[in-house]
């Protein structure tokens, strides 16, 4: 058995087939959150539930039983503060983590607002990041003198970065194949949610899953960052590649944002070389 945690859609048959593994369940609706918890919690197999409904964060209907579920709520937009405000006391009891898309500039400010209220939260830094807003958020995360919740991916990077190695902060999005593998109902296995959607599979079936660590495709994928140097990518000359691992490669050539991403990641490096400020949060849960 591999030490991986499997990321899978909510599917009772699939959960039954993967009894040997800890799981992150991708819930597509509010009702699946409690069900996933009921299925996996008693065997101590539930690592997390990720809820992505397509609704604004403030519009999600929260239910009482969610209080003790390791829940990650992903939303493309924040919604209305007034709507969220009435739920704040309940949300504080839940201990959920809130992630907003990095594709909308205003989301970075909402993440800061959530953190300032003590929530652990994060921004999903994808292909279309807003670097200036992201930079403001990283400064808040690292340097704000006020108490605040953890802000991902900055909290993860500062807690796990080592000067003599690189880091894949996509772990906070369950997209680090050294720890998480994505699997679908056909038991097709991929290194990330995007690769699973794109049909880029590493293996298929339970048996291949069990031996994934010795799988050639998997090993190649784990070391994909080496390609930056082999093909002499622009990113290979960047001081901050150990933090970004070339996540924005190619994008920089199209829209000229390379300097922005480089400056952003250098600011992260600079911040983590200094002693980070302690932040509030439950330390027992780890990505």
């Amino acid at each position, binding site marked *: 058995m591999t030490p991986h945690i499997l990321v899978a859609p909510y599917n009772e048959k699939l959960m039954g087939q993967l009894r040997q593994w800890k799981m992150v369940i991708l819930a597509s609706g509010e009702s699946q959150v409690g069900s996933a918890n009921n299925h996996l919690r008693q065997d101590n197999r539930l690592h997390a539930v990720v809820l992505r409904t397509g609704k604004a964060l403030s519009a999600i209907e929260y239910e009482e039983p969610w209080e003790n579920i390791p829940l990650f709520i992903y939303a493309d937009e924040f919604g209305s503060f*007034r709507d969220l*405000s009435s739920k*704040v006391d309940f949300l504080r009891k839940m201990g959920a983590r809130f992630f907003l898309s990095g594709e909308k500039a205003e989301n970075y*400010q909402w993440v800061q*607002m959530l953190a*300032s*209220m003590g929530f652990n939260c994060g921004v999903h830094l994808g292909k279309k990041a807003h670097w200036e807003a992201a930079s403001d958020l990283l400064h*808040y995360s690292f340097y704000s*003198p*006020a108490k605040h919740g953890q802000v991902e991916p900055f909290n993860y990077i500062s807690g796990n970065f080592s000067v003599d190695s690189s880091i894949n902060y996509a772990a906070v999005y369950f997209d680090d194949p050294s720890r998480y593998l994505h699997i679908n109902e056909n038991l097709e296995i991929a290194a990330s949610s995007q690769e699973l959607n794109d049909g880029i599979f590493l293996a298929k079936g339970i048996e291949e899953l069990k031996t994934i660590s010795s799988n050639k495709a998997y090993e190649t994928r784990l070391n994909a960052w080496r390609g930056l140097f082999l093909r002499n990518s622009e990113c290979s000359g960047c001081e901050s590649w150990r933090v970004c691992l070339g996540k924005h490669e190619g994008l920089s050539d199209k829209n000229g944002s390379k300097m922005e991403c480089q400056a952003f990641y250098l600011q992260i490096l600079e911040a983590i070389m200094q002693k980070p400020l302690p932040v509030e949060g439950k330390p027992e849960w780890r990505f």
Partner: protein
Amino acid sequence: MANILLTQKCVRSCPYCFAKDNMESAEANAVMSWQNMLYLADMLEASKENHVSLLGGEPTIHPHFIDYVLYLLHRSFHVTVFTSGVISPRLLAEMEKHLSKVHSERLSFVCNLNHPDISPADELNKTKKFLTAFAPFITPGFNIYRPDFDLTFIFDYIQQYGLRRHVRLGLTHPIQPAAENAYLHLADMRKMASRLMEFSDSFLKLQTTPGFDCGFPVCIFTDEQIGVLYKAGKGRLSFRCGPAIDIGPDMTVWPCFPLHEFEKKSVFDFSTVGEIGKYYSDLMAKTRAGGRSGIFEECNDCEHLQGLCSAGCLAYVLMNKAALSGAQSV
């Protein structure tokens, strides 16, 4: 404590307005952004402040007014809103929906009331609806800008609507440097004090405390009057002038409205609210030093100077200094 200005626009045009100059010199559509509000909330928290006041202009016309109040409450601040109470029916309904269930110890409104005789009917109507809706949250406020003022309507409102039994009394000061607003002239100070004492029975009878805003000098009252005020105010009387710390939507900071042109700085020049307060306290003390330090000539030799009394509002002192230097140059 700091005052955060959410807007630079007001729905009224009071003759004594102490924010008028500042509003006129500011960008009309300037409003406090979420980004700045988040920064200020963090700064206040890091400064160990647990109280914040929201001002304007009229703060309730800010599109995120309710959101900001809710946010600051979630951040565990006690919030005081200084308002005219002239609020549109739609906003008032929203405020009732979202704010009326807040504990009244955590949220206060200081409603700056003008005498009904000088208030247009529509304004008065709206204000009364606000008083009805938020009575337990509301402390009535009244600005004195002439010696023949009348507080009777305030006592009526307290009884009629069940407002908090405290009246915030503001003394209107000349806004520096132009002093174009209506304000109480020095020659009328003692007359004003005598007039105030005519309402002392009402304060005592209705168990309503008078609260002096900044700049009241102690010597305009006789010892006997101070004794009565001491009783009515349940032992709390203030004759101080110090920085209130007003922060504008553009993050400029100044000590108070009468001194809005007095060494404006940026909030980002300071790390804590305490630093801002110290900066302006020192500056104000320095400004008073040399020449006449108070509003009256006898202030310099007064036994209460910098003890019980700050010698009145610094705006009068500056006005006097400006007049003197003008006379010298002539």
